[in-house]
Each structure stands twice: as structure tokens, then as C-alpha cells.
């Protein structure tokens, strides 16, 4: 009996076992099919609309299976709407924001978790970063708009990098605090005895150990910045527009250009899907950790 037990690894979870012990099966399959259908059908619609001929994406009754596929909409957005430029903007802004946020955020988190701060300072910082994470971005929109206008930073990538870094820092700090708290302090103590300074301990011992945390922070920041709309629409006029601003522009400026609009949305969606799938495990972990932490 003992070996029997050992041969069965925990490849099922307890809730799963309970559910499958009862008449959970049909319920399970119905739920899964339904939710997959609900998620996939709109995505199918988005993809086919992007590849449909103009007379088909505007047709009524709607064409469910397109008679022919064309890249006309893509040609249009890349030539007429200069989507490649805006793709570049989104990319530069997201990459720089991610780098800055992950570096400064993990440094601050490490200082709060392991630095020789008093207990009170520690909890004050903790609460500050938590509150910062919750408060609404719209609250600072008008002053930020005024300041950026005065500083001549309107319509620059710099302005968006500055603001996105500000929004994502508190989240990354909270996430990384969770990861740092899980590392064993004894490792640092022995490093200290060997004469390893604060910086050395952080960069050489702790950071390599918390790589999943860094990846989770990076992907969450990248996605948030890539998709950010409020400040992108406020602070950009023409040159620094990001993809979400271009998509919203289709509604206000072009009316029923569903094909090009779907194509732009698809171009916006694909990089984040690929990135998220590559690091899915760390992404899910990071989400769960972020939620449990605060």
C-alpha cells in the first residue's frame, strides 16, 4: 500500500479529485467548452475581419467564413496609417519602462525587505507603495498634462516612459518584496561574513535566486505599458502615439473601417500573447503572488 501511494505523484489537485469523484464530469466539460467558445469566437472574429475583403467585413448578413483572405487591410494600415511607426513607439516605450521599473523596483523592494530600516519605516514604505498601487491614474492626469506642456515634453516618448514607470513601480515593488521575503536570510548572513557588501549580496546572490520574480515583474510591466491608454491619449498628439491610441482613433476618425481596425488590434495583440505564453508559468505565478500580497 505504501509503494502504491508513493507511485502516485500529486499530479491532480485535491479539488479536482473531489470533483471527479462525483458527477462532476458533464458539468466540467460543459463549463470548459463554453468558456473556450466565449473566448475564442471573438478572437476568430477579430482575426478573420482583419483578413476579409472590404465588402465582406461590412456585409450584412455578416460573413462568418470569409470567401477569400486578403492582406489588404494590413497593407493599408502599414502604408496609410503608418502603424509601423506607432508599433515602434509602443515597443520603445514599453521596453525602456520595463527596464527602468524592474531595476529600480527590485532595488527598492530589496532595501525595504532586507535593509537595516526600523520596523516603522518598513511598514510606512509598505503601506505607501500599496496605496500608490491602488490610487486612480486619472487623479494626476490634469496636473501631469499641465506640467508636461510647460516642460515641452508633450508628444514625446519620454513623457510616456516617465508616467508608465511611475504607475508600474509600486506594483513591481510589492511583487518583488514577496519574492525577496521567500529567500533564506542565512545565505546573506554567510555572505556578509565573507565580506560581501549590500550591493554584492543583492546583485550576486539574491537577484539570480529571484529570476522568476523578475520575469513576472517584467512581463506585467510590459503588458501594462503596451496596453496603457489614458496617458497615451492625453500626452500624445501625433509623433508619440502608441498602438492603443491608434486603435481608438479608428472609432473617432474613420467610422466603419472594421478591417484596418481589426488588423491594428491584431498587430497590437500578437506580441503580448507570444511574450505571455513564453513565460506563462512565471506570469501566472506573478499574478497569484501579486494578488496574495496585496
Amino acid at each position: 500500500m505504501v509503494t502504491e501511494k508513493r507511485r502516485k505523484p500529486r499530479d491532480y489537485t485535491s479539488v479536482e479529485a473531489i470533483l471527479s469523484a462525483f458527477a462532476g464530469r458533464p458539468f466540467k466539460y460543459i463549463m470548459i467548452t463554453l468558456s473556450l467558445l466565449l473566448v475564442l469566437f471573438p478572437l476568430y472574429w477579430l482575426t478573420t475581419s482583419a483578413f476579409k475583403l472590404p465588402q465582406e467585413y461590412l456585409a450584412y448578413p455578416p460573413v462568418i467564413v470569409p470567401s477569400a483572405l486578403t492582406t489588404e487591410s494590413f497593407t493599408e494600415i502599414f502604408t496609410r496609417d503608418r502603424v509601423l511607426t506607432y508599433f515602434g513607439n509602443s515597443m520603445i516605450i514599453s521596453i525602456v519602462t520595463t527596464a527602468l521599473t524592474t531595476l529600480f523596483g527590485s532595488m527598492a523592494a530589496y532595501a525595504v525587505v532586507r535593509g537595516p530600516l526600523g520596523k516603522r519605516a518598513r511598514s510606512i514604505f509598505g503601506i505607501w507603495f500599496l496605496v500608490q498601487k491602488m490610487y486612480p491614474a486619472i487623479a494626476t492626469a490634469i496636473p501631469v498634462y499641465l506640467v508636461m506642456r510647460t516642460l515641452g515634453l508633450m508628444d514625446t516618448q519620454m513623457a510616456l516612459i516617465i508616467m508608465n514607470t511611475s504607475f508600474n513601480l509600486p506594483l513591481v515593488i510589492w511583487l518583488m518584496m514577496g519574492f525577496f521575503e521567500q529567500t533564506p536570510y542565512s545565505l546573506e548572513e554567510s555572505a556578509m561574513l565573507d565580506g560581501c557588501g549590500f550591493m554584492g549580496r543583492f546583485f550576486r546572490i539574491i537577484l539570480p535566486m529571484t529570476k522568476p520574480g523578475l520575469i513576472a515583474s517584467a512581463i506585467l510591466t510590459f503588458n501594462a505599458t503596451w496596453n496603457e491608454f489614458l496617458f497615451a491619449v492625453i500626452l500624445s498628439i501625433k509623433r508619440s502615439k502608441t498602438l492603443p491610441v491608434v486603435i481608438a482613433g479608428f472609432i473617432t476618425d474613420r467610422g466603419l473601417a472594421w478591417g484596418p481596425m481589426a488588423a491594428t488590434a491584431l498587430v497590437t495583440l500578437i506580441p503580448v500573447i507570444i511574450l505571455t505564453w513564453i513565460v506563462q508559468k512565471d506570469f501566472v505565478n506573478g499574478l497569484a503572488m501579486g494578488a496574495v500580497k496585496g
Partner: protein
Amino acid sequence: MNKYRNSDKLATWLFLAPTLIYLGITALLPLLYSLYLSFFRMKLNLPNQVPRFIGLDNYARILSDKLLHTSTWNTLLFTVVSVSLEVVLGMMVAMVICSNKRWARNVTSILMIPMVMAPVAVGTLWRMMFDSTTGIINYLLSFVGIPGINWLSDPTMAMVSVIFVNVWQLTPWVTIICAAGLKALPGDCMQAALVDGATPGYIFRKIVLPLMKPVLVIVLMIRFIDGFKVFDTVYVMTNGGPGTATEMLPNYIYKQGLRFFDAGYAASLAIVFVLLMSVLSMGFLKWRKSEEEKVW
């Protein structure tokens, strides 16, 4: 080890410095600037206009602003309905996909797509599908005998649509967090209950739900606070319309400040909004703390 203490202290503050300075300048100062502006009358569209001090007039205006009251009510309705649906549906889906097996990972990969999609793209996609004349939704509904619905131009249906889209995009988030929580539940007490002949409904109510409560409280808190901040999808789907049927607080503040260029009034609205959110967050944090103490 004492000789390291001083250099550690210095390094700690050096590590904190970039973030503290950064957040001070980009988050705290603008908030203080908002507070300052809220006591002034300032129109952004008039060149060389000097802000005029008007004391609490902006705040007095808040009390009598009918449209603001509508937006507040809409935001509350939107948040409560969509968050409730997301938590219930998210938990239900989490129950069936909380498995470590390969199929569960693959299903998760697909379910997470709406969540990583730009809200603006989600809004436009559904706007296209909800279109009352050429949209696919009305076409599909016609097969089951439901006549064309004016999804985005009927006041009630516009709110339903905006809620639906939010639920579509964010239920997966709830699912992923809940599934992570469910996977971590201890199996032995459930097995024991099962052996003792407890029904699944009983196990769910008496074991799964109480153990999941701390996770659910946090999910509820994060979703509720985020719900109040909804902007992107509303902006592209209805922009608050038809009329004021889906006007929400962030969109309203945005319009006051950057459409009607009334910076002073928008600032006072922002301050009230922040206060409201702070009260809400503090309440949630207190609740969460009491839940945590109960469990541990």
C-alpha cells in the same frame, strides 16, 4: 558584523533613493498640484489665463452637479454587477481547471488572452460585434428568434454591453488567481470529508469556500478598486453615451478637464475621487486583515 551596518544603511537609502525621488516627483507632486488647482478657477483653453482663487466653489459645485451624481451611480452599478459576475464565474471556471495536468495549462493559455489584450482593442472588437446593423451578435441572435437589439444605443443595453465586455475581459484573471488558490488547498480534510460521506455541495460550502475566503476577499478588493477606475473600454465603446447612460467617474473627470478644459473643477473631482478610493481601500484592507487573523 557591526562594521557592515553603516555601509549597509547608506546602501539601503541609495537603493530606495531612485524610487522615492521618482514617485515623489511623478505621483505625489501632481496629486498636491491637483489639490492646489482644486481651489482655483482655471480654463485650459483660454490663453494666458491666470488661475483665479475661488476657495471652495469647485467643491460646492460638486454637491449640486447632477451629471456627477449620475456618473457616480453608474460607476457603482457597473462595478458591483461586473465584479460579482466575474467572481462567481471566475470561481466556477477555476473549480474545473484547477489541475496540474497539461490540458489545464493549455486551456489557461487560451483563457488568458482576453486579459492580456489592450482594453481599447477589446472595446473596439466588441463594438464591432455589437453593431446593431452589421454586427455578428444580432445576426446570431436572429437564429434563435431574438429581434435586433440596439446594444450600444439603448441606455439600458449600453450598460449591459459595457458590463458584459468587462466580464469577458477580466473573468479569466479571477479564474487564474482562484485556480492558484484552489491548487494550494490541503487535500486531506476534503478526502476525510469525502470518506465520511459528505456531498460535494457540503464540501464546497464547509471546506472549500471558508479556506478560499482570504483569496476571494483579495480578488474582490482588487477587482472592485479596478472597476472604479474603468476608462478605456467605456471610452471606445460608448464614451459615456447614449446620453449619460454609461458615464463613469474617470471618463467624466477626463471630459471636464480635457474636453471642457475646466482644470480647476476636474482637479477637485479628482481629489474627491482619490478620497473615495482611499476610504474604499482602507475598508478592504481592514476586512482582509480581520480575515487573515481568523485563518492563521
